[in-house]
């Protein structure tokens, strides 16, 4: 699996961004940028410089669910994998995220192994679909 994937990690807490970034680096990914909410993330994504989004849900200004919907509504971005890593744990929310087109859902607190599994599953599914 290519380690050249370009990640955008979106979370309003710098500590959580740092944790996810370190975990991704441990998995061998070096190309990781950060944004602190959906509103900052969206223009970054529109530059076309990212292959994978890891986003929180509960953020000020533009929450993760809105970011997900904006990505799926954008002609150029709609195919981008979006992994939601969030403390939001209500069943109705998970269903809503799936309906909005989320690629994977991880509840906080999470382990390195769970993040790795979800990432690999998403990438495998995409590789299978593309192949």
């Amino acid at each position: 699996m290519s380690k050249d994937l370009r990640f955008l990690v979106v979370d309003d807490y710098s500590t959580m961004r740092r944790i996810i970034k370190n975990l991704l680096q441990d998995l061998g990914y070096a190309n990781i940028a950060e944004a602190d909410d959906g509103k900052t993330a969206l223009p970054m994504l529109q530059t076309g410089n990212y292959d994978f989004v890891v986003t929180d849900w509960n953020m000020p200004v533009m929450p993760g669910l809105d970011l997900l919907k904006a990505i799926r509504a954008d002609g150029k971005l709609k195919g981008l994998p979006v992994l939601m890593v969030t403390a939001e744990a209500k069943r109705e929310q998970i269903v809503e995220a799936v309906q909005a087109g989320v690629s994977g859902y991880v509840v906080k607190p999470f382990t390195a192994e769970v993040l790795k599994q979800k990432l690999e599953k998403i990438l495998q599914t995409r590789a299978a679909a593309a192949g």
Partner: protein
Amino acid sequence: MNSTTLRAAAHDASQRNLERLRPLLERLTTAVAAGDAAEFEHLLDDLVHARRKDLFAELRRLTSQVRTALESFQCDARLTDLAEKEVPDARQRLQHVLKLTDDAAHQTMDLIERCGPLVDMLVTGPGKRPVGAKEAAAAVVSLRRNLSEMHLAQGYQDLTGQIIRGVITLVDEVESALSGLLRLVGDAVPAAPARTSAPNTGYGPVVPGVDHGAAVQSQQDVDALLSGLGL
């Protein structure tokens, strides 16, 4: 209550008294006309008694009004103090808690990241050659120091805990001041429409004992739900 309304209320009360006492007064006049001294004394006692009863009732009503006004004043004063000073203070205190937890988390992660290369060096050696005894000892000393500093960084919990406890006390006080105010105004204030949550922004982490309902308990629950939805 302004002075005009008070005067009108007093006038109404006098009218009612007159109507109520009229039969007694008529019997009194009759007793005087008949020269019935015993009946006259008896009716006069009744009249005085009725007057005294009215006075006590009025006094009770006034006392109750004064008490309510005093309670209301104390409640208002406390609420003003809470709203103008203590709640803004609490906001700043909680901002400080955020900063302390943020600093501590970053400091701990800095130390962990400093440990990484030391551990790598101990395992694989500096460059391609095996690690020397002196280098190993120095790396272990650095690791030990980093671990101690990580330990110290957890001191934030004591400080933030104290601040959060203070804010909990304040929330208790705001709750009781608001309840007091609600008791005083009773039904005078129309009920505001229930606040609807905006799920788009999320609910935040599930808090045991507060959040109930259909929340998942673990990543396994999430995975089961996702696979049920075809993901």
